[in-house]
């Protein structure tokens, strides 16, 4: 049964269990994907998703009605993931290999890959690489903002992002090569 957001919101404001489940049924796939992107393992992603969802259920009242409910939910989860990861230190992940690498010419047609393959390409990254890739490429956050959020210089951010993208691309192209053999 596809429920109206209006009913779900009202029901969750009243802590009605049926409506809480309805919210889960309608949106868990989209919101869990956010947690999967930010975390290396499925287990970590599930733990964070559970915590974030429980927190969400206490805060549905905070949705002001401006903008879509789905958009608000996604922002809620993204902020939760970022906050959860932000406080860790990543100093040891910054110092190595900070130089520009040669770009290879091979094109990457994203459509050739499945969701699972794309998720796998994220999981090979180091934590910091993964966060920066998510913020810069998926959330489209400007580097200035990421700098303030993670307290890392924009120059460093750019090179880490570049390295992340290169690794992912290599990984995906390898998969394709193996597929074609």
């Amino acid at each position: 049964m596809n429920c109206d957001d209006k009913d779900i919101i009202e029901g969750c404001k009243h802590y009605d269990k049926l409506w809480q489940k309805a919210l889960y049924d309608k949106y868990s796939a989209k919101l869990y994907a956010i947690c999967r992107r930010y975390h290396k393992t499925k287990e970590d992603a599930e733990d964070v998703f559970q915590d974030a969802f429980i927190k969400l259920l206490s805060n549905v009242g905070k949705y002001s009605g401006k903008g879509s409910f789905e958009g608000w939910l996604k922002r809620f989860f993204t902020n939760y993931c970022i906050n959860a990861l932000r406080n860790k230190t990543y100093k040891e992940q910054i110092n190595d290999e900070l130089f520009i690498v040669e770009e290879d010419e091979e094109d990457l047609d994203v459509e050739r890959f499945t969701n699972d393959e794309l998720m796998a390409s994220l999981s090979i990254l180091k934590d910091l690489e993964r966060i920066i890739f998510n913020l810069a490429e998926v959330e489209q956050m400007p580097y200035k903002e990421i700098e303030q959020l993670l307290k890392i210089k924009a120059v460093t951010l750019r090179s880490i992002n570049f390295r992340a993208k290169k690794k992912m691309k290599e990984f995906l192209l390898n998969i394709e090569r193996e597929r074609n053999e």
Partner: protein
Amino acid sequence: MSKKQDMKDLGERFKSMEQTPSDNVWTNIEANLPKKSFPFKTFALAGIGILVVGALLVFNAPVRKNVESRLAKVEGTQKTSKEKFLESKDRTLTLEDNSVKRRVENVEQYSNSSLSKEAETNVSYTIEEKEVKPVEQTKITPVVETKQQETKVQNQVSANKTPKLIVENNQTVTHKSNKVDNSAEMELVNQGNLYVPNAFTPTESTNNVFKPAHRDLTNYEIVIYARNGKKMFSSRSIDNGWDGRINGNIADKGVYVYVIKYTDLEGRSYTQKGSLMLMR
């Protein structure tokens, strides 16, 4: 395709991706669901309401006499302790051309007058100003209404075991259309669409109360019957469900029937009937 485009597409793929969590995720969440907390706000509001009423009573002596004489006629059969309770809570005065409307509010009835159930019947009289709804009434008629907020307060406050007063309300519950129309009141019989569970387990620690999923409504009534027609439960509050008990004991397992009548926020009335399984 250019490199930039590749990565933009990659970003977009991730942005729109969906992933299904494993089944135990919901189980874990379910075990930690936040629930409704004690309604401090409602009590605070009720307290403020009482203060406002008190202030108005003190400062509006002439109008008060008029009002009290009208009330005296109606309150004849009530018990004194109840009278006191009602007077202090629900009367708000209006100053509109001395026209006074009476409303009967929050009549909650239960099928048996045993003391095992915690709720009691409250009949309260409120004199109110013509307010929120654009209903034009040229005659003074008692209209049965349920106000969500006040229902909650009375439910909470009446948790003690005072003797029950059951008032057989002989008025028919009718729905007044909100359009300006002084013609006959129509009862609309539309099929309701509340989200109602079809079973519950009163002996377990979860799913042990039968009630529809919450919706904001202006009017609500549910009655539950056994297959032999015996009335098991009734309520005027959507959040107040059946715990499966009759006379203090959990009823037999089996099929029961519910009849729900309600009016939504747009003023439309609905009836919804169905069956439910009581499982033990």
